[in-house]
């Protein structure tokens, strides 16, 4: 362990800093033999933003859950306003003014936005719950976040990004003085992040203290006042904003510098692998417009195509239709020369078309199965001979996947829920790569994975592309487009609004998506 405290000054002795409102003192947390935290000191300063960086599985979420009473530490103490406290559960912490936005959404899908926001803290009127008042406050929150989400929509009808907004709104509605945000922006677009940052600045100016976790390092740098780096359950570096830059974070996080690279070069593109012709998809919720509107697209073997767009541009629907989950109302999908519109998802996977879905909890993982069983789920046929599955072949496949996408786990038998958020995401990617696809579609695959893992995944995709894999990569991060794509397609309202090659500038891409270009 080479990196020790980079800045010699202990946080609370530095006069530039606000007073410490909440602190972890020598906090450790173990799950059996897995030591998620090994004695961490962590300070939260009044009215300032502390960002927490660290690789997937470094212990960020664990520390935040301890500070917000969701779980209890194995040893060490929590100090609130200078006095040691212990929270039995998150409600106790909330009553003391600490609230948390969880990395994984914790909404009730069948309830409306309003009911989710006020769940457990219903506003009581003279005759039961005062729904009108709740709705009014809910509208106000949405206006503050500049979102057009109706308070009465069931949460399950919202897109992932919108659900994340609801999660944020719920935390904001509590009026807490310490707000912990664990990857609040993983499904948000650049514009929405801007709005959130405005809200955060507003909060800090009112004296609210914020903890912010994100794997979008540039983004986090914009908002941070202090940066803390966790590595393997220990705090390895601390510094105020003035002393840090991107390179500092990455060096302390992973020990070396990572470059996301550039699009794979030096191989000839093959024949058209996937061809979408005039595809039209009606709104899955029954509204009378088309989420994908007569869209045509060709992807050649060995080519990496990025689809950029805002939330609601129709990217997810396009990919889900090609994968066979949604039904198109018109047009056709041709895989390596054969029309596949009538095929089931399983048959499409067998022909080499794989989709890495956006929402890992809902569409990606089987929570009751182990890490290994999740990784092998989409390739069962490849290790089944006759009636039975072959354990050795399965084990080999699982081990290869774990190595390929660098899943940090105690072993294939570990419960999927014991993995950190980013590592769960890697399992979803690994599962579909294990099917040995000819065309792979990834829908926002970098949600929650750290910079090292992202580089690893990009390298893997680039290598496979050189061997003829066609890659469709949907993202709302412009930077990602530029470091992997041969061709960038911008979607807007169900149609392709622009197409660029890899030499284009970020601003051009963003302008084509209908996004207001931020400074």
């Amino acid at each position, binding site marked *: 362990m080479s990196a020790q405290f980079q800045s010699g000054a202990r946080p609370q002795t530095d006069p530039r800093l606000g007073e410490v409102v909440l602190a972890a003192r020598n906090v450790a947390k173990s799950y*059996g*033999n*897995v030591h998620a935290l090994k004695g961490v000191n962590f300070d939260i300063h009044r009215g300032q933003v502390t960002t927490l960086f660290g*690789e997937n*599985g470094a212990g960020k*979420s664990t520390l935040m859950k301890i500070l917000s009473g*969701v*779980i209890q530490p194995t040893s060490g103490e929590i100090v609130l306003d200078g006095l040691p406290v212990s929270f039995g559960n998150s409600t106790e912490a909330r009553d003391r003014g600490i609230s948390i936005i*969880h*990395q*994984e959404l*914790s909404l009730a899908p069948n309830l409306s936005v309003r009911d989710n926001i006020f769940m457990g803290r219903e506003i009581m009127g003279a005759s039961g719950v005062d729904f009108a008042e709740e709705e009014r406050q809910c509208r106000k929150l949405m206006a503050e976040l500049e979102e057009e989400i109706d308070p009465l929509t069931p949460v399950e009808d919202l897109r992932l990004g919108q659900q994340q907004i609801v999660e944020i709104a719920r935390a904001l509605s509590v009026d807490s003085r310490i707000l912990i945000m*664990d990857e609040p922006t993983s499904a948000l677009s650049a514009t929405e992040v801007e709005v959130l940052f405005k809200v955060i600045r507003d909060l800090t100016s009112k004296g609210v203290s914020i903890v912010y976790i994100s794997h979008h390092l540039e983004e986090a740098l914009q908002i941070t006042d202090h940066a803390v780096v966790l590595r*393997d359950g220990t705090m390895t570096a601390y510094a105020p904003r003035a002393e840090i830059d991107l390179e500092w974070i990455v060096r302390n996080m992973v020990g070396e510098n990572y470059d996301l690279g550039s699009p794979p070069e030096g191989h000839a593109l093959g024949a058209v692998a996937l061809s979408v012709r005039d595809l039209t998809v009606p709104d899955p919720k029954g509204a009378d417009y088309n989420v994908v509107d007569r869209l045509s697209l060709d992807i050649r073997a060995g080519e990496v195509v990025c689809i950029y767009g805002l939330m609601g541009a129709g990217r997810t629907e396009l990919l889900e239709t090609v*994968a066979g*989950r949604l039904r198109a109302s018109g047009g056709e999908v041709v895989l390596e020369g054969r029309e596949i519109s009538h095929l*089931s*998802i*399983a048959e*499409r*996977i*067998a022909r080499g078309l794989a*989709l890495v*879905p956006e929402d890992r909890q*809902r*569409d*990606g*993982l*089987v*929570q*009751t*199965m182990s890490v290994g*069983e999740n990784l092998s*789920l*989409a390739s*069962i*046929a490849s290790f*089944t001979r006759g*009636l*039975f*599955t072959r354990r050795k072949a399965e084990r080999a496949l699982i*081990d290869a996947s*774990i*190595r390929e996408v*660098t*899943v*940090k*786990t*105690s*072993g294939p038998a*570990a*419960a999927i*829920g*014991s993995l*950190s958020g980013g590592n*769960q995401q890697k399992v979803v990617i690994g*599962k579909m790569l294990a099917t040995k696809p000819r065309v792979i579609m990834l829908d926002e695959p970098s949600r929650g994975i750290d910079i*090292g*893992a992202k580089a*690893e995944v990009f390298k893997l995709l680039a290598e496979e592309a050189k061997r003829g894999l066609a890659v469709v990569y949907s993202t709302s991060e412009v930077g990602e487009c530029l470091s992997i794509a041969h061709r960038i397609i911008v979607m807007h309202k169900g149609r392709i609004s622009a197409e660029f090659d890899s030499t284009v500038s970020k601003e051009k891409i963003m302008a084509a998506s209908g996004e207001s270009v931020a400074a």
Partner: protein
Amino acid sequence: MSDTTLARSAAAKPAFSLGRLLLEGRAFFALIAIVAVFSFLSPNYFTVSNFLIMASHVAIYGILAVGMLLVILNGGIDLSVGSILALSGVVAGALMQGVELPALGVILYPPVWAVVVLTCTLGALVGAVNGVLIAWFKVPAFVATLGVMYVARGVALLMTNGLTYNNLSGRPELGNTGFDWLGFNRLAGIPISVLVLSGIAILAGLMLSRSAFGRWLYASGGNERAADLSGVPVKRVKITVYTLSGILSAVAGLVLSSQLTSAGPTAGTTYELTAIAAVVIGGAALTGGRGTVRGTMLGAFVIGFLSDGLVIIGVSSYWQTVFTGAVIVLAVLMNSIQYGKGTRKS
């Protein structure tokens, strides 16, 4: 990066803990406790012959419970098994009486093997109706199987006019004897019904742990959307489990009417609840995706040995009901302790 990968696999052996062992092996320890207590209370309990008799009672519940386990693993529930059991028994009874074909003026007396095949086919069909209603028409499992439960029971009552077939022995001159074989004969001293149960349990166990279908079943019960997107044929899996549950109900119906040497339309009332109880006591989660055949078998034996033991020591049947209920609640309580701890949010 790769140094962190898998680095902990060697160290990941969970520490030995008595509490954990007791929790995970609870059905097994419960069974041992039941056997110990009743052996102490009654000298007749701990004898080979009594165990074989009790085991042949357990066979009925056990067979139903295996089918129920498959359905519950899928995240569903099958309330119709008791009714399918009765309907199968009645149909088998009717077939044993001979089928009159008025158009041809003949009466057909199908041999026993044909009766068995026809009855199982009937069970499969009724089960498939459940499956299609649930998988294609999106009827909630509880409602679909509740409806089929009433319909099947009603058809059984209609067929017999509420009466019971008391003569299932067939006639030697027609060559259709042997129906009592299932319920009364023994192979190497073990009742056939127990052997049937063992065979079914082993097959189901192999299917769940070693076949692709088993994996599909656990996956679609755990998260149907994710399974679907991973290429699991979730609808086919669903229809198959209800069909299998129907077949196993028919088998249980045959074994029961053979044991009783009669087939009545009211047989098997509330057996679906006993089967569900066995599955739950065996540690399966009603939300789907978790459970094993071994656990379910233990659950069936816990219920069977408990109620027979209470009969042997002469406790009133009202108390039996109370005890069974208490065991079920206790089992579910422990399930939630076990599964509540293992998972976390992110």
